[in-house]
């Protein structure tokens, strides 16, 4: 999934040096070091170990769990744990600890973990000291893939139980390569090397403690400054390279781009109220604009266009054929709208039906969900859709508006932009599971209620083999594509640029967190010469 910037080629020969502190510049500051937000996933990766990891091919490899098996009915997962690992507070990493973590996630300890496992998880029990059994209420094929995310990092139960919420938020105790040393709010998080680290995942480049002594994880929200700090050598690595700088970054630095699996950045259409209750109108909008050209232009060719409104191209079980059912076809869009009865046009070209304008209230969390480049893409989309007679009113939401729920209900928008990272296609279940009276599904932002789609997804989750899983998910994507509740725009990506003085940084596979455990400083300057060999070729997973 990681675009191959062939890190190895730039690495000098010889043994990695130990020591040094990595200056890393990051876009957003998390609220806690560990939690359910993607930012928290990034920081948690540095200090927590998960049960399993994913390697470059999407294979699940051992981490804290050395071995696993699932029962015939796919309801019981048995995981064998390493026996030689302790949390940094001395508590052993054992079956009890893992079971405790499962319970705490589902008990409100981590909303994202709960979103994934909720409705499936039943119970976790320690079979013996180093074997844990997870009971599910229904088969859940992407179980291991789910666990590979850092939302599922294992924390010390002693710490969770005995320390305050504040302490667990600001300095969780795990068994990972680093520990939290200091957190200067608004400035940086300081990680110190866990000198006793011995539990790197199998796909790590080395075992044992990290090479570097620590990481200074600075929060530099301003794009120009963040990238600038790399140029001025104030940072050794920075994340979230702005599109305008990517071309240069590729040339001057080690540049890696991670295309996040899960739901890409899509336009969710409100299928419950308003103009998009009409499937033809939804399809018409899907046809109406040249999204490919739009994304190419808005991101200056640095971020892949994602035709699918449901899964990102890096997600296992992505169906490229289903994704390409809505190419740019203005005539088709017009046809569909005419059929749907939007035949008249107002003076400004907006279509009218029964005296009502084809107006679309289009909301998006600016700078929270959508980057400035994404904002450009949305404006391009708005302008392009005018040709078909859509009058799109953009309504960027402030962070407060965005997350307060005030703009989340079916009355609040006609179209809304969102993405949801997930290492597997099970995200479809989160996004399209119909809500019930007692348990409304807030994650269903298109409000689509479709039995067929739901059943197909359930079949996929319960399928015994990965081929069958993929088949059912393919099916679901085709069904959704027909219903057209969402329109794909571009893939959510993580990028990192690393200066030549630092080697061995990689982005992990499940969520794209930077991994610094294997990173080391290159002392020999001459070794860091820039072989201007490679241009990246972005691969799709």
């Amino acid at each position: 999934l990681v675009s191959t910037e062939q890190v190895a080629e730039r690495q000098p020969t010889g043994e990695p040096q130990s020591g040094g502190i990595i200056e890393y510049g990051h876009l957003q500051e998390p609220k806690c070091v560990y939690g359910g937000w993607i930012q928290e996933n990034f920081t948690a990766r540095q200090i927590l170990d998960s049960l399993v990891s994913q390697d470059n091919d999407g294979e699940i490899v051992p981490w804290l769990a050395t071995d696993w098996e699932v029962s015939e009915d796919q309801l019981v997962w048995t995981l064998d744990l390493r026996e030689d690992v302790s949390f940094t507070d001395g508590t052993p990493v054992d079956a009890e600890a893992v079971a405790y973590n499962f319970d705490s996630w589902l008990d409100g300890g981590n909303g994202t973990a709960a979103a994934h496992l909720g409705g499936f998880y039943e119970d976790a029990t320690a079979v013996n000291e180093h074997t844990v059994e997870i009971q599910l209420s229904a088969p859940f094929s992407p179980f291991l893939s789910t666990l590979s995310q850092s939302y599922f990092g294992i924390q010390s139960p002693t710490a969770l139980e005995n320390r305050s919420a504040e302490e667990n938020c600001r300095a969780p105790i795990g068994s990972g390569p680093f520990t939290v040393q200091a957190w200067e709010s608004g400035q940086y998080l300081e990680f110190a090397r866990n000198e006793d680290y011995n539990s790197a995942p199998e796909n790590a480049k080395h075992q044992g403690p990290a090479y570097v002594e620590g990481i200074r994880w600075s929060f530099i929200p301003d794009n120009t400054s963040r990238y600038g700090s790399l140029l001025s050598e104030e940072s050794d690595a920075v994340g979230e390279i702005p599109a305008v700088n990517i071309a240069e970054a590729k040339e001057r630095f080690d540049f890696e781009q991670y295309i996040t699996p899960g739901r890409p950045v899509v336009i969710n259409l409100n299928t419950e109220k308003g103009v998009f209750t009409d499937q033809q109108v939804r399809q018409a909008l899907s046809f109406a604009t040249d999204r490919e050209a739009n994304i190419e232009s808005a991101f200056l060719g640095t971020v892949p266009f994602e035709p699918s409104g449901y899964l990102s191209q890096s997600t296992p079980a992505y169906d490229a054929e289903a994704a390409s059912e809505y190419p740019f076809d203005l005539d088709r869009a017009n046809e569909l709208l005419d059929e749907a009865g939007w035949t008249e046009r107002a003076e400004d070209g907006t279509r009218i039906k029964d005296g009502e304008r084809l107006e679309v209230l289009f909301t998006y969390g600016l700078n929270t969900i959508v980057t400035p480049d994404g904002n450009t893409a949305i404006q391009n989309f708005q302008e392009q859709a005018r040709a078909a007679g859509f009058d799109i009113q953009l309504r960027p939401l402030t962070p407060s508006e965005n997350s307060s729920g005030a703009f989340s209900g079916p009355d609040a928008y006609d179209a809304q932009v969102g993405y949801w990272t997930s290492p597997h296609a099970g995200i479809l279940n989160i996004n399209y599971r119909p809500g019930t009276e007692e348990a409304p599904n807030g994650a269903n932002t298109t409000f689509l209620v479709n039995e067929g789609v739901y059943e197909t997804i359930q079949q996929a989750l319960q399928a015994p083999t990965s081929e069958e899983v993929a088949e059912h998910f393919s099916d679901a994507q085709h069904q959704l594509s027909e219903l057209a509740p969402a329109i794909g725009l571009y893939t959510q990506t993580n990028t990192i640029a690393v200066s030549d003085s630092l080697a061995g940084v990689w982005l992990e596979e499940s969520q794209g967190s930077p991994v610094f455990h294997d990173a080391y400083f290159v002392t020999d300057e001459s070794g860091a010469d820039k072989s201007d060999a490679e241009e990246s070729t972005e691969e799709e997973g």
Partner: protein
Amino acid sequence: MTLTPSTVLTEPLQATPAPPPSQSPRQRTRPALILSLLLRKLGAAAVVVWAAASLTFLMQALLPGDRATMLLNQQTGQVQERSAEELAPINEMFGFTDPLLVQYLSFLGGLLRGDLGVSYQLLQPVTTVIGDQIAPTVILTFSSLAVAWAVALVLLVLTARRVGWVSRLFSGFEAAAAALPQYWLGIILLVVFALGLGLFPVVGGEGLIGLVLPALTLGIPLAGFLGQTMRTEFERTLDEPFVLTARARGMSDTAVRIRHVLRHALLPGLTLTGWAIGSLFSGAVIAENVFSRPGLGGVLVDAVNGRDLPVVCGVVMLVALIYVIANLVVDTAYVLVDPRLKLTH
């Protein structure tokens, strides 16, 4: 036959404050008077801080959307509606479902005990959240003030009422500086001096060198305002007879400007400074943003965006307190600069 003095003026022609009775000229303000004055000022300060906090509380409570939903969404990075079941524990923890009055009263109660509450988002006590960030903001605010004063004073003394074009050029410069959008100036400074020339760090942090550009960003526009107000007074004072007297004693021009005229021009500058403290804080938000600096500005914006009521209230009260204190200082400075104001202030 007598000849009488003819034109005797009763009142001083200039608007000097009415001379206090010269029979008891060395009237030191009695301690009781000072004490009551101090108490009054403190009382007023407390009222201001309390009112600012209450206003904030009310405004925050009136914002649309649900606070518990917001917290839950922030914890998961999602933006969806939540079920009552999901929200119940949060509501209970922070008492969001209590009547507003009850919430307000418990907030006031906390205030009286010196407890500003716990941040909803960061789970830290508000005092800690603010305590961590107060220093950079205060340092930035006051170094901007210092920059503004230094620039304004130097330009004033050197250029006021000089050969036509010098004076005009620099008063034009002041007008332009006053009209500069701060963030724009900040970005340009950043791009030119940090990114382009590499003279300053791109990411300021807490160091002294990192303070230069942010302080200039806020200081230059303020210097424009200060310069404009003080220049008027400065030039007016240059016309005062006592300035001519000083020259007639053989004082050099520069000495006259610094020792006599400047002091008079300080007064409107001080007034403006008192007013500017509040707006400097708003400016600090911008400078912090542009220069990736820590500080209360960022905390406030985050807290507002996250509807973190305790933090917002805490920051507002702190800013109000700083404002009030700064204005007490300004009042004192007034009296130092112009001892005539001793009693009335």
